[in-house]
């Protein structure tokens, strides 16, 4: 560690502090005093952000939006470039109501995750709220492009009762993009009976750092589904908090990460059953190879009175090299009755019996290993929209040896 944690924040304050509003200056000053989370904060136990020290956290410039052509990004989309909405390429569905505010900083605690939100609030361009009106169905793609410096998108999406939203979130950038840093904060509010399906594809360039904070408030009989494919960047960290706030609320979280080379992918989930008869399901798969690192830190809390809760949690991980690491911590805290909870996490290497079976059928070792790795990840890909799945498969395959040979194996 360097002498002073997160001098990068001090540099931002020196560079642009005087241009910020008093509220933001105050927020930034407080953040400089608190510092960004470190592994000493329990919530960041597995995530070390010290590589941010050397990076420029100043909000990046306006720049043209661009993304890989094969991503199935639709015409109705909300595009951020370096944390700023790019209105030239953004088109929102007509049913959606939009409000944008520039300067409201909420009250944040000193907790690690709140410090990420404080960071975002101090440096963001603006905060946008989208409302999907009652009983309407909307599809929207959310594109985060990072080309230089820091990016601090901040977005709230509210679904009124009975509203449905299919949201696909992409993290992208040009392949030669420098060491960008994104800290995105997304708040989701689901009224009674609302349904939100949130797909996240993190395929950022190799030098990027992506920090994502998602908080979902789930109302009565509402459903929040989140599935993520985390493939790119140098380091990515997602915090996923779901509050099941009214009876019958449900959430299903799933996803995969592939940490090759020296990449790091960290996920923290916090599922909060605050009301009766809620359902939550978590299904994660992680693969680390070369010197890749990953973690799954998942906590389920069942409050007093949240009777009839049904919760499942599974994290399965695969280590493909001796220098790769994956850490897991599934946690369960139950304070209610008549609760059904299952949880577990495993980390291991490829199954030797499966490997021998494939070899005994004449597959070469490299192909056999790649096929098994891919099949392992593919298990959570089945829920993805097919066009997104294809884009994810192409990228995941590209990271594995013998890509062409294994393409057909997973039909």
């Amino acid at each position: 560690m360097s002498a002073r944690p997160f001098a990068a924040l001090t540099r931002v304050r020196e560079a642009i502090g005087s241009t910020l509003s008093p509220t933001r200056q105050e927020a930034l000053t407080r953040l400089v005093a608190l510092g960004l989370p470190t592994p000493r904060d329990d919530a960041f136990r597995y995530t070390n952000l010290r590589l941010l020290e050397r990076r420029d956290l100043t909000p990046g410039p306006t720049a043209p939006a661009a993304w890989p052509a094969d991503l199935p990004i639709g015409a109705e989309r909300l595009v951020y470039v370096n944390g700023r909405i790019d209105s030239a390429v953004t088109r929102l569905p007509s049913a959606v109501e939009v409000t944008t505010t520039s300067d409201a900083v909420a009250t944040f605690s000193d907790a690690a995750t709140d410090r990420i939100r404080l960071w975002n609030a101090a440096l963001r361009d603006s905060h946008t709220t989208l409302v999907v009106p009652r009983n309407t169905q909307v599809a929207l793609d959310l594109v985060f492009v990072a080309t230089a410096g820091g990016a601090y998108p901040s977005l709230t999406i509210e679904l009124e009762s009975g509203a449905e939203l299919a949201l696909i979130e992409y993290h992208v950038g040009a392949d030669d993009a420098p060491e960008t840093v994104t800290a995105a904060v997304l708040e989701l509010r689901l009224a009674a009976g609302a349904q939100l399906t949130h797909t996240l594809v993190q395929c950022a360039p190799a030098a990027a750092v992506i920090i994502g904070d998602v908080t979902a408030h789930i109302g009565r009989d509402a459903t929040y589904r989140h599935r993520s494919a985390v493939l790119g960047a140098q380091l990515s960290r997602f915090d996923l908090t779901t509050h099941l706030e009214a009876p019958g609320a449900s959430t299903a979280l799933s996803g995969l990460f592939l940490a090759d080379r020296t990449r790091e992918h960290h996920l923290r989930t916090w599922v909060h059953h605050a009301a009766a008869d809620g359902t939550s399901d978590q299904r994660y798969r992680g693969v680390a190879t070369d010197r890749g690192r990953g973690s799954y830190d998942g906590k389920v809390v069942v409050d007093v009175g949240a009777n009839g809760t049904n919760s499942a949690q599974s994290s399965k991980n695969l280590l493909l090299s001796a220098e790769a690491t994956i850490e897991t911590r599934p946690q369960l805290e139950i304070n209610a009755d008549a609760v059904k909870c299952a949880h577990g996490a495993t980390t291991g290497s490829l199954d030797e019996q499966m490997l021998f079976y494939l070899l005994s059928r004449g597959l070469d070792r490299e192909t056999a290993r790649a096929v098994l790795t891919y099949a392992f990840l593919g298990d959570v890909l089945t829920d993805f929209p097919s066009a997104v799945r294809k884009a994810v498969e192409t990228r995941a395959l590209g990271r594995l040896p013998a890509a062409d040979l294994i393409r057909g194996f997973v039909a």
Partner: protein
Amino acid sequence: MNTLQRGDVILDIQGLTADVAGRNILKGLNLTIRAGEVHAIMGPNGAGKSTLSQVLAGRPDYDIKGGTATYMGEDLLALAPEERARRGVFLGFQYPVEIPGVNNVYLLKAALNARRRQQGLDELDAFEFMTIVREKMKLMKMDESFLKRGVNEGFSGGEKKRNEILQMTVLEPTLAILDETDSGLDIDALKIVSTGVNSLRRDDRAVVLVTHYQRLLDYIVPDYVHVLAGGRIVRSGDRTLALELEARGYDWLIEGSSAA
């Protein structure tokens, strides 16, 4: 490879000794298999039957301590499992593993093309391949849903065994080793599996049936029956030996094993 004549030696095992997890299981086993022959290897539990099958297929965690196994003139034990498969050695597993997410038919296609490349043949295109698979599936009375499923994924015990035999009939190995393929099969499935195995019998191939029960041999009539006990072949004979074993058990042979 196509020049094998009935009676040519396919596999010659001499003095094979192997350990499993530090325990000596095979203790100097001798066995010669010739083209056109079906051999049944019988014996009590723990005699080393499955170890022999797995050793011949190249299972990596089994330690060869001594002896030789020569397959078509090559040192079999020096070949990696995938090289053995491509040269025509097929193991039908006693407990075929489930591999979720890996397509059953695609594996079969990759396996067949790996074998064909080794034989200097062109890879089959999708249509030619499916024609063969559909024909063999009909023989094995397997329905279309098998094509879409993961390798053995959610298969019953009987379905897994039929899938092994389906793979065998498509791959047309020179040497098929079937490890207790009959265990856990009802009589109908046993007949189907036997039809599959019998369809493979040819002058330039050989089949080794590892089995606990004589019952299978009513449907696949072997040329030779061997008793494997204490890590060695202690008695060899024709199919009447299997009937004798059924009547008398193994004890009379194990006591006299030094005679082998």
